[in-house]
């Protein structure tokens, strides 16, 4: 029965023949269970990931329901990680789902992330991504950066020691940024960016992603652009200026 579920994705030549085994033996941590994070977690579990950790300290609000498809009206007021865990287990009851009801900060990050094969970014601010980036480099665990607003967003694989990290280029490393409610975000852009993040994650797990290009995707124009970002030797997180 298990095998039957995955036949259609196993037939994809990019996955065949070894990809499915890699997916099923990978441990994934998703930080942030909002629009991108909850969609990423769902895709990962549907594809066959058997070990997933979800991290968030927020509760579900009415304003989440237009794009955070994991949650329903009856979930308003409940913790995102609690509802997400139940929903993920409904998709596959044999998955180990660990829920962490905490804000990821530098003092707890390495403990929460250390068992991951890959870390997925479902956060919504610069501070949290900086914490993720530093922990990923220190632990030598790859992470997939994803961010979205309006009709567009970015995805980038960050493989410590191999590709540039988030601090190798001028991505802000502190602050909240502008919230989705103020800036606006199209639900379909959230889905597109989270889907792209899942594809790039698969490639990393299968050792098929080595460049770590920054991918820009706009679902409205529509438009896709890829920017090469070489490592910065003097990077404050992964280079010689590391503190």
């Amino acid at each position, binding site marked *: 029965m298990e095998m039957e579920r995955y036949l259609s994705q196993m037939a994809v030549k990019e996955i065949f023949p070894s990809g499915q085994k890699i997916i099923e033996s990978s441990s994934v941590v998703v930080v942030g269970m909002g629009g991108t*994070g909850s969609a990423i977690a769902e895709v990962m579990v549907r594809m066959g990931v058997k070990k997933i950790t979800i991290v968030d300290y927020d509760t579900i609000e009415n304003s989440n329901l237009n794009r955070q498809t994991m949650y329903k009206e009856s979930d308003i007021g409940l913790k995102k990680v609690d509802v997400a865990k139940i929903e993920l287990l409904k998709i596959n009851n044999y998955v180990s789902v660990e829920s962490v009801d905490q804000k990821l900060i530098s003092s707890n990050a390495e403990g929460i992330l250390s068992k991951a094969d890959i870390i997925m970014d479902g*956060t*919504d601010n*610069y501070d949290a991504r900086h914490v993720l980036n530093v922990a990923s480099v220190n632990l030598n665990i790859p992470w997939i950066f994803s961010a979205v607003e309006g009709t567009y967003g970015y995805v980038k694989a960050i493989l410590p020691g191999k590709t540039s990290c988030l601090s190798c*280029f*001028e*991505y802000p490393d502190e602050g909240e*940024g502008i919230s989705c409610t103020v800036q606006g975000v199209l639900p379909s852009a959230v889905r597109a960016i989270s889907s792209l993040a899942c594809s790039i994650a698969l490639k990393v797990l299968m050792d098929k992603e080595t460049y770590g290009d920054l991918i820009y995707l706009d679902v409205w124009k529509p438009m896709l*652009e890829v*920017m090469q970002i070489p490592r910065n030797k003097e990077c404050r997180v992964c280079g010689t200026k590391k503190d």
Partner: protein
Amino acid sequence: MRVRIKYFAKYADLAGTRQEEFEVGHIKIGELLRVVKEKHPGIRENESALVALNGKYGNEEQTISDGDTVSIFPPVSGG
């Protein structure tokens, strides 16, 4: 010499176009950005834009050449 500027995301709205050409001397990317921001004040001086020179991440100290394409992307924080 002529360089092409490509505007992405909200910068295309602020510039009112997705791309345009500038006639400039042999200047650095940082100076080019100042010229761009002067023409389009909506692209704020203090915002750290991501800049690519011919598809590769560039820094303000790089000098541009005739025919180069400089792409400007805004930082994005949501999720």
